[in-house]
């Protein structure tokens, strides 16, 4: 089954409206797209539209958290992390307020709206803020659980959600654990470490590699900060080559985070799959993933390069 992580966000909010009276939801005139409208339908008295004003969106959420509410603030990732960056940094994260920023339409798969609306810097921006927790779910199931977990967790959280439907990575038995990477496939020749939409691409890449006799481990890093250092270091020690994959700039995102861990602890050859320091453009999500080299075949290509660098 395929479902967008933003749809799962709407469903999770609906559940929270029934289970947690402290939860309030704010949106900046995009509630139909971000799916916060699902919360508005059931708890209109706890839903606040702030209009097209992302700075005030975050500032107001900060104030609500200071009087005991658990605010979820939503808009597109571009505007949440770009336009409101400094408010997130100074008014939310600096005092460690309990604000959840759930941003949708992250990455190139925004599609037709084009480069102005495709946030490919948001992981980098949020990751650099001290004390920020950053979650990028791989499928709808993981997204729903991550949102529910974020409501329980005390502190600022950024949740990165997508517009496009993504295939199921998990079945019903899956239990999301904040801060813990998930090994989805065992492998011994190299490890593909992926996040978000690129997890499904990586699983397909591993199948292609298997047909060519290459055994690839696949790890999903849903919590990019704080990152699961152990699972990364073990993968480096055991497979001795890494490929990272993310629907994000190759600068500052998951690839950089993994490099930071390995450079400190256990350097091995590493290739990064991501958007190559350029902006996106209009197009069908599928065509964009192809043009910007985010397909399973692109992961396979980088995997082979990483293998060649293995000592």
């Amino acid at each position: 089954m395929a479902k967008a992580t933003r749809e799962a966000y709407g469903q999770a909010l609906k559940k929270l409206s029934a289970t947690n009276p402290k939860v309030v939801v704010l949106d900046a005139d995009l509630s139909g797209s971000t799916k916060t409208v699902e919360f508005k339908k059931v708890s209109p008295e706890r839903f606040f539209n702030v209009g097209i004003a992302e700075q005030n969106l975050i500032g107001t959420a900060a104030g609500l958290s200071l009087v005991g509410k658990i605010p979820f603030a939503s808009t597109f990732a571009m505007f949440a992390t770009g336009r409101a960056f400094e408010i997130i940094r100074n008014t939310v994260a600096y005092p460690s307020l309990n604000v959840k920023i759930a941003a949708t339409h992250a990455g190139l798969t925004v599609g037709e709206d084009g480069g102005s609306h495709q946030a490919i810097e948001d992981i980098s921006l949020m990751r650099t803020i001290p004390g920020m927790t950053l979650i990028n779910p791989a499928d709808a199931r993981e997204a729903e659980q991550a949102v529910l977990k974020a409501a329980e967790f005390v502190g600022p959280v950024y949740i990165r959600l997508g517009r496009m439907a993504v295939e199921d990575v998990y079945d019903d038995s899956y239990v999301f654990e904040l801060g813990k990477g998930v090994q989805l496939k065992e492998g011994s020749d190299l490890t593909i470490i992926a996040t978000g939409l690129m997890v499904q691409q990586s699983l397909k890449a591993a199948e292609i590699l298997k047909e060519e006799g290459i055994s690839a481990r696949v790890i999903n890093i849903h919590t990019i900060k704080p990152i699961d250092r152990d699972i990364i270091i073990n993968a480096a020690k055991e497979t001795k080559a890494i490929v990272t994959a993310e629907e994000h700039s190759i600068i500052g995102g998951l690839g950089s985070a993994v490099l930071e861990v390995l450079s400190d602890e256990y350097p091995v050859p590493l290739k990064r799959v991501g958007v190559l320091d350029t902006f996106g453009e209009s197009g069908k999500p599928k065509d964009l993933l192809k043009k910007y080299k985010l397909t399973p075949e692109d992961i396979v290509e980088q995997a082979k390069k990483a293998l060649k660098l293995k000592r």
Partner: protein
Amino acid sequence: MKYDQLKVIARSMRRNILTMIYKAKSGHPGGSLSAVEIMTYLYFKEMNIDSPTDEGRDRFILSKGHGAPVLYAVLMEKGFISKDLIPTLRQVNSKLQGHPDMKKLPEVEASTGSLGQGLSIANGMALGFKIDNKPNRVFALLGDGELNEGMIWEAAMLANHYNLDNLTAILDHNGLQIDGKNEDVMTIEPIDKKFQAFGWHVIKIDGHSFEEIEKAFEERKTINKPAIIIAKTTKGKGCSFMEDEAGWHGKAPNDEEFCLAMEEMGDIGDKIDGGGLNG
């Protein structure tokens, strides 16, 4: 006299503000001194606040966070924080950061300093109280320079849209910002008409007159919508050489200037009507 007690507190605050900044050798005296009477009245007459942790307390947000010394000074007068902290302003490991930091000093209600953000925080608090039908009120002190920030007007719109009648903004309108007079840097007048157009009730007063401050807050209580008190003030008030000088926005007095300023303000035990400032 009716306001003698407040004047004594105000004088003590001015001395402490100057002493903090003098010892730190940096800080913002001008915009701290201009807000002394407003802060004194808020904390000693207007706000319901007997302790900095009581759930039922009214909330105060210092949107113009560089005025931190005046906030620290009033918290000292309330007995919420110790006067022993005076020499620690802006020093490493101090609770008294250059701009208010609620993690280091939980007695302040929010971390502020980056301008234009406090009104949004106050909005969020006021919204939260309203949806719970709680009586708590929220007060935010704004600087006139920070009205240049677009976010202020986003917040002004929201306060009207959600009819935040439990929110009161006070504008410390001293007319100066870092690069000079408001009108030379960026025209913000007519401030009253702007806020009126945004749906706010506007009250204009002399921000150094306790009588006018009191009247303003009493008038505010009769109005069922967000209100702003535009308080005309003098930057550096109480210190002759600092008054109305943009250069004293963010500069500490030297030894000589400090002694002169303290002499002008008078000793704590002096008669209230004696000094030029408090007479």
